[in-house]
Structures are given as structure tokens and as C-alpha cells.
């Protein structure tokens, strides 16, 4: 990776114009996760790929953490033959931050096929990250074949029911939700009655000024239901969060960054550390996208900075870190 090395493909096994180095470079553009900082009770999220440009002022806050997602360990198809390498690259970026995040959130699809060795590999790679605590929620790829038993054994200590839980950090209330279990034919992600009831109870006694961060794998807003990119009963969950002035929802699943503001709620999806997926409706199916390096940025339509301002009327505005 010396500065003067030209970008030429050394081994193009798949004849798709992207070698491993090329891919790693793509991922550097695409961003492999998000750095989140809470300032004045409001969450701001920055793509990891732009962190070297992040000034000390922007990175300082009451609390900062990192969201990574969709590492799909075990995936080895042309869209990314080295998902371990790209996850390591994400960890390197996290370790290079000027402000050390307090913990990490992994919003699911840790593994590709729920194999023990896939989880082991991710655990091993994340051990080298400076933040030692990692909070997980499962993706549908983590609960194959055993209804999530293995996932809960590994990551579900202290969680309720199907793996949901909450915790508090420096006055911010974090809620990890599970919406990848018991999916019904033709349907979307689902939270289910038990979890919704738990959520209502979990937030009932909190002050409206408490900043809330909800994280789950499948988006809790309707990104593109035609591809299953949404959660059937998310409206009910959000109804329980109406009284709070600052609510942030962090999701993965769709392998691209997207933001949306709806009243007091800001929604973000994180990029994958493994491979990109097409924008909603831009392909026949949401399968992994093989894209040449020079195209990746435009295909993904990355917004580098998601700057949320204001205490109550939130808006995603700033797109410059200069």
C-alpha cells in the first residue's frame, strides 16, 4: 500500500476488473461503518471513511461510539472474496480515531451462514479493536437453522426473550431490538407482541429529555418493502418513543447508508463491511453488487456526513467536514 503504487489489477480471478487491493480501496470510499457522537443529547453520525478529516471539535461529545454492520463472515463470492480483510480495515479505521469510542454496536449479519467458525473469526478480529465492549443484535444470517439459539448463547447474555435488551451510557438510553425472527411468507421484518410490550415498559419511566438510541438489523422504517426492507410493526415501536425529544434509530441490512428524519426520530442505516447492495429498485434483486472501483461511489450515493442539529426539530443537514 505504498503511496506510489499504481492502481493496476494484479490478480483478476473473477474477470470483473476488481482485485483485492482494488476492493479494499472501494471499501475505503464506501465507508465501513459509522462513528457516532452524542452532543447536547443529539446524535451525529459520520462515515468511517471520512474520519481522518474529522476535527477534534466535531468528535468531542458526551459520548461517542461506533456502529459496524453486516460483516457476513464466510461470504466469499466475487462481490468481495475477502470479507475478513475488509472487516480488519474497518477495525483499523476505528483504532485510528483521535477520540476513542466507548463501545461498538454491531447491527447484525455478523456471519454469513451462522457457522461457529464465522462468529469465531469476527470475535477474533474485533478483539483487536480499541473499544472492548461490543453490543450485538442478530441479522437473519445469524439465526439460520437454530432459531437463534447459538446467537443467544454467544451474544445474548442478559437479554430478554428473543435477544432484546437495553442499557444506559452517560444518560443515553440504548435499546437493542430483534426483528429477524419468525419471518412470515410475503412479509417484512417483525418485532412481535412480546418485544413490543417489553419496549413499552422499558421506556415508560424515562424522562422525555432522555436521548434514545434504538438499534436493530432490518430498518425500522419503510426503505423498500418490495425487497423486504422494512419492519411490519415498527410503527408500534416508534409510537412508544413519541414522547422523547431525541430518538435515533440505527439499522443495517441494506448495505448502504441512508438517512431519514421523521418528527423527533432520525433514522440511519450503516454500510456493510462486506459488500454493497443496489439502491432500492435499481436492480432486479437485492443481491450483492459487483462494481468496478471507479463506479462504487456513485452507485452507493454515499453521504459522508450526517449532521443532526437541534434538540427537538432534528434535521440531517451538513455534508461538509471542511
Amino acid at each position, binding site marked *: 500500500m505504498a503511496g506510489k503504487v499504481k492502481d493496476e489489477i494484479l490478480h483478476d480471478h473473477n474477470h470483473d476488473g476488481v482485485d483485492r487491493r482494488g476492493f479494499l480501496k472501494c471499501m475505503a470510499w464506501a465507508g465501513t461503518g459509522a462513528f457516532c457522537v452524542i452532543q447536547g443529547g443529539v446524535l451525529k453520525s459520520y462515515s468511517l471513511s471520512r474520519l481522518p478529516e474529522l476535527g477534534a471539535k466535531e468528535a468531542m461529545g458526551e459520548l461517542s461510539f461506533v456502529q459496524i454492520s453486516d460483516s457476513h463472515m464466510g461470504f466469499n463470492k466475487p462481490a468481495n472474496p475477502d470479507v475478513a480483510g475488509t472487516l480488519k480495515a474497518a477495525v483499523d479505521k476505528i483504532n485510528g480515531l483521535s477520540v476513542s469510542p466507548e463501545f461498538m454496536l454491531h447491527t447484525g449479519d455478523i456471519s454469513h451462514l451462522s457457522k461457529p467458525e464465522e462468529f469465531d473469526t469476527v470475535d477474533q478480529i474485533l478483539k483487536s479493536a480499541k473499544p472492548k465492549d461490543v453490543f450485538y443484535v442478530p441479522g437473519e444470517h445469524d439465526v439460520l437453522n437454530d432459531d437463534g439459539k447459538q446467537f443467544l448463547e454467544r451474544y445474548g447474555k442478559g437479554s430478554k426473550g428473543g435477544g432484546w435488551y437495553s442499557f444506559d451510557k452517560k444518560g443515553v438510553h440504548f435499546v437493542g431490538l430483534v426483528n429477524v425472527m419468525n419471518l412470515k411468507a410475503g412479509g417484512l421484518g417483525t418485532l412481535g407482541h412480546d418485544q413490543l410490550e417489553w419496549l413499552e415498559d422499558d421506556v415508560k419511566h424515562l424522562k422525555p429529555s432522555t436521548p434514545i438510541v434504538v438499534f436493530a438489523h432490518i430498518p425500522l422504517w419503510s426503505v423498500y418493502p418490495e425487497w423486504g426492507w422494512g419492519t411490519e410493526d415498527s410503527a408500534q415501536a416508534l409510537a412508544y418513543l413519541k414522547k422523547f425529544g431525541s430518538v435515533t434509530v440505527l439499522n443495517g441490512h441494506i448495505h448502504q447508508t441512508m438517512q431519514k428524519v421523521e418528527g423527533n426520530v432520525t433514522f440511519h442505516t450503516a454500510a456493510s463491511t462486506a459488500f454493497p447492495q443496489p439502491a432500492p429498485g435499481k*436492480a*432486479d*434483486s437485492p443481491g450483492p453488487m459487483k462494481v468496478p472501483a471507479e463506479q462504487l461511489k456513485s452507485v452507493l450515493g454515499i453521504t459522508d456526513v450526517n449532521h443532526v442539529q437541534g434538540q427537538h426539530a432534528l434535521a440531517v443537514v451538513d455534508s461538509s467536514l471542511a
Partner: protein
Amino acid sequence: MRRSVFIAGLAATLSLGMGALGVGQKSFDASAQQKPETTEVKIDNFTFGPAALTVPVGATVTWTNKDDIPHTVVSTDDPKAFKSKVLDTDEKFSFTFSKAGTYPYFCSIHPKMTGKVIVQ
């Protein structure tokens, strides 16, 4: 520049359409000869092809995953008539239908993917 944007599976979808026709014809030929039935469903581009398949009683249907992403084949009925393990790329699942009826199924990982087998 645009030509170099690759969306995997576009060509595969076209060939799937033709492949599905071929499979349908083959099953009719076989039934005419009263041979044990084997019928293929291809999983490609997040779609079961053909989405609705009609077979005679006693036919064995085999699903093959041609996607880069794992899928499952799970009966929608309660109790479930059949349920595959997760199928990675090129892995197969077979089920023999011994009773007449309509058997709806879906991919439990991507529930928007649905199909049915009609056994006559």
C-alpha cells in the same frame, strides 16, 4: 462508463426464464412415460423459478440455489410440510410430494420470496 456497472444476475434471469420453460416441457414428457418424476426449481435473483409448479403425485421436486446469497425452502403450512436447511450457492434440497394438494412455500431468510407446488 455505464457499461462497466455490473449487476450480477441480469443475464442469469434471462437464462432462468428459458430454463424454466425447458423444465416444464421435460416434466410433461416424463409424465407421459409414467416414469418417476424429478422436477427442478431454480432459485435465482431472489426468485423461485417457476414460482408455481404443477407436478403429479409422487414427484420429487429439487430446488437449487443459483444465487450468491443463501436461501431456504420452507413450507408456509402449519404444520410445515417441508423445511430445507439453509442452502448456500449451488446447494440443493429435494422433497417428494406423495399427496395431492397445493403447497405454498417461501424463503425464511427473504420472506418476500414465495412459490408454490401444485400436486395433482
